[in-house]
């Protein structure tokens, strides 16, 4: 039975790289501290593979043929895609892929009634994958990655209950289909509150963000599924905040566990609330396990 040895959620706002230098010291501290802790935890987990769920941001597919989940099966993942380079302001990177795990994931989810799509060619990555890859030093740690880009913004959007079900199927796949001694890391990339492209582009909903971080760190998944609705996320930043659904997939896979946050910060230029959570994979809280 393969094991989930690392699980976390973290934002991927492009400003976390391109605009970090110019940010105030207290803001910078939270960003650096959050990603340093996640980077250390990933390295310490000695994972054999990292599966990242992240908002696709309409980067790969036309709006009329838009997949809810798109798995990157390439042997190497290169990013960022050309047009996003000046916007993110980051270096080019190449991360080892895992075609074996990616194809097993595709087959495993299909078998469990979850429609995903999968592509052999390099996917187009923007901040969704580029920011966590660079800030958590995935390249340096040499961990193969399987990216899964999801639909968090094109209606109809798979909601929190559907994403939790997808996560439960993912957890079942990891435990039952992957090689018995495999160590798997999971990252939900996205959030916190933001409204990219909207009339409230600079809006950050601090109250929502703090509520969300406390809730996902509490391990109370029943409350999460009842209250983290699409309506609530849209109100906290339309077209952006709902990418927290990537965290919900990870939570469905791990079940109820307490988590730890490394602080929260708001900075206008990031146009996004910033805070991450690392879940304790050694904890056992069977009583709070939610049913999706």
């Amino acid at each position, binding site marked *: 039975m393969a094991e989930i040895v690392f699980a976390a959620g973290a934002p991927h706002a492009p400003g976390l790289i391109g605009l970090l230098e110019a940010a105030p010291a207290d803001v910078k501290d939270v960003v650096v501290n959050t990603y340093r802790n996640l980077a250390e935890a990933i390295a310490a987990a000695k994972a054999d593979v990292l599966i990242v769920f992240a908002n696709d941001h309409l980067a790969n597919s036309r709006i009329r043929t838009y997949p809810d989940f798109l798995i990157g099966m390439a042997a190497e993942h290169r990013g960022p895609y050309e047009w996003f380079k000046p916007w993110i302001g980051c270096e080019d990177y190449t991360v080892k892929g895992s075609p074996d795990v990616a194809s097993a994931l595709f087959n495993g989810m299909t078998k469990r009634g979850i429609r995903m799509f999968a592509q052999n060619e390099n996917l187009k990555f923007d901040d969704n994958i580029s920011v966590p890859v660079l800030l958590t030093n995935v390249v340096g740690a040499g961990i193969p990655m399987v990216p899964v880009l999801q639909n968090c913004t*094109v*209606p109809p959007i798979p909601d929190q209950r559907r994403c939790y079900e997808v996560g439960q199927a993912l957890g079942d796949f990891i435990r039952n289909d992957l090689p018995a001694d495999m160590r798997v890391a999971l990252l939900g990339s996205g959030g916190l509150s933001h409204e990219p492209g909207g009339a409230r582009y600079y809006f950050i909903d601090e109250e929502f963000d703090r509520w969300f971080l406390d809730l996902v760190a509490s391990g109370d998944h029943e409350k999460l599924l009842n209250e983290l609705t699409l309506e609530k996320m849209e109100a906290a930043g339309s077209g952006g905040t709902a990418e927290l659904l990537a965290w919900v997939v990870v939570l469905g896979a791990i079940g109820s566990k307490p988590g730890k946050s490394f602080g929260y910060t708001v900075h206008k230029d990031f146009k996004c609330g910033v805070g991450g959570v690392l879940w304790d994979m050694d904890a056992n809280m069977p009583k709070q396990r939610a049913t999706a």
Partner: protein
Amino acid sequence: MGLEKFNPSLATHDLIQDLKWSPELREEFAADEAAVLDRYALRKDERRAIETRNFLALYDIGLHPYLGGQFARLIFGNEAGKGATVAVNKLVESLQGKGSVA
């Protein structure tokens, strides 16, 4: 302003995706915008809104806001802290009531 007016059939969505995916098309768009627009099945009001940089009108007829944000960057600049900031401010100005920001 959210997704309630979203019209997935709007041809502007394809234009924006193609501009993102092709440096050659971006060059052509900058040099001869009309020639590029001629190749897309744009409604009259849709084309007019693009030509006058009226994001408010584009959103009213159903442009997806995420692609709207990218369209602003394709037009006004895409570099972190520089052109991209101009693009965000122009977009917000339009959406908050000004309409055309040509």
